């Protein structure tokens, strides 16, 4: 049986982010100066200039992945970790920004950086680059957070990946929502959280 090593989350609507049992809010004075994701980046004192070029999905994925790998067991082998994420909207927010940009005939071929983020799986690539993960990277789109289907897909992938960083990462009018967890099939990291539908449902209720 696989286990959840840890989980991290970001919920803009409720102004919360955290890891495992630790929960934080972004103070109003930080939000006055930065948007929600940038405020988290500053509060956590992360240093990764590429962050500022990313779209919101990638920013949220970067932040959650950094929280997850903080103080990770030293035996964790990064190269054997995959990243498989799920959401509802694909990259639609960035797609709309892109379309609005190219409506201007003067701007029909805008900066390549804008187009690249019109693919939902870019966030998986950003996480692999930052964390030096060389495992499987995939992105799935579904109408709702379908926990059973997520557990099925990740359980299948664990036959070919020792670890998978996975979860839900979505962007709507209400802001960004992410719940990511690091799943391991390796008994070395057995924690008390089994990788089950029930465990993920509990986390979801806690943060969404």
């Amino acid at each position, binding site marked *: 049986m696989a286990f959840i090593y840890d989980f991290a989350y970001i919920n803009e609507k409720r102004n919360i982010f955290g890891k495992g049992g630790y929960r934080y809010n972004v103070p109003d004075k930080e939000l006055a100066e930065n948007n929600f994701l940038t405020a988290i980046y500053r509060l956590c004192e992360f240093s990764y200039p590429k962050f500022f070029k990313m779209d919101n999905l990638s920013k949220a994925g970067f932040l959650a992945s950094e929280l997850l790998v903080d103080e990770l067991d030293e035996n964790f082998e990064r190269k054997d970790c*995959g*990243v498989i994420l799920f959401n*509802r*909207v*694909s990259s*639609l927010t960035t*797609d*709309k920004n*892109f*379309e609005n940009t*190219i409506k201007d*005939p003067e701007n*029909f*071929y*805008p*900066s*390549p950086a*804008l*187009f*690249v983020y*019109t*693919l*939902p*799986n*870019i966030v*998986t*690539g*950003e996480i*692999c*680059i930052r*964390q*030096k*993960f*060389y*495992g*499987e*990277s*995939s*992105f*799935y*789109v*579904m*109408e709702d957070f*379908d926990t059973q*289907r997520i557990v*099925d*897909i990740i*359980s*299948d*992938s664990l*036959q*070919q990946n020792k670890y998978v960083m996975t979860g839900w990462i979505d962007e709507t009018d209400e802001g960004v929502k992410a719940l990511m967890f690091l799943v391991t099939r390796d008994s070395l990291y057995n924690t008390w959280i089994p990788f089950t539908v029930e465990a993920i449902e509990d986390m979801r209720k806690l943060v969404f």
Partner: protein
Amino acid sequence: MIEILSDNIISPLGFTSEENYLNVKQGKSGIRTYDNIFDVGRQVSCSRMDGDLLDAEFQKVTGLCPTEYTRLEKSALTSAKKAIDALGIDPKNPRVGFYLSTTKGNVELLDQNLFDDPRLYLWNTADKIAQFFGNPNKCTVVSNACISGICAIIAASRAIESGRIDYAVVTGADVLSRFVVSGFGCLKALSADPCKPFDKDRKGLNLGEASATVVLRRAVDGSGNLKFLRGSIRNDANHISGPSRTAEGAFNALTDILQDFDKSQIAFVSTHGTATAFNDEMESIAIDRMELNDKPVNAFKGYYGHTLGAAGVLEAIIAKHSIMDNTVIRTLGFENLGTSKQINPTSENLATDKQYFVKLISGFGGSNAAALFKKEV
């Protein structure tokens, strides 16, 4: 082990896999050169379906009204229906799972200013497919850039092997749009003329549109169907829009599927071969590191362009029909090798008596996948 029970391709080269394969074998291409397609203000070559022919085929096959469906929905539904109709399976059965591989779905609706249209959601398109067949399951959507098609085949195969379903209907689909032409244009990845994979004069890719479907099930010995033996998906962890200089992900994926395998049995490697400078160079490095330099290598982009989410499924089907026909297909557009590593792209159709082929594919986000297939004799 998994096998392909039936397959279909809906493309400018035909509405069945057989018709598509015969056209490819004869060197016909769907690519045409357009002066100002979608009003993009420049010459672009791409492989585009005739809308009237697609409408007629859609209506004939599904009995639905073409004006009520998008171009993507029409081609995907027609393809899935034709692949299923070739079999005796009941698509309503909950033991049948549906998979959709697409990168941009109905993004053309944004070009029409329909910013709040629910059909923009990829799962909306997917559910339309499952519902059309009366299937009670949610259709699984894989959107993993250009490697989506092979990822969907791998995901569906795993679900069959885990015992959750008995049959999987995997459809890859994308259509041309102003959005996509602009995007690849701003990356400076588009060739004005028909593309030339692996050639020293290659100038970029052509976009294409198609839908392609495979129906999978657990392999039955002696069935004569093409077997899908192994698949692997690996990230480069290098760059979001450029491939790794060491072809790390592609090499790792190939290493995974060819572990303990006698490579002399491989008939050919069907590459991604987009005809961009970076992609073809990267694939040559992966093939060189794998010591597959002498193997015939081909790319089908000269026939179809880059069909995005359909590419993995479509190209696996063409490769399937070619190995069943003891043939290695020519890489249309290729003349003189233009990669730093010495590899062996085909410049004509070749005969083969070997049973195995490899499908290799790469995409944005540093994603790569490889798959090993076998013909039963």
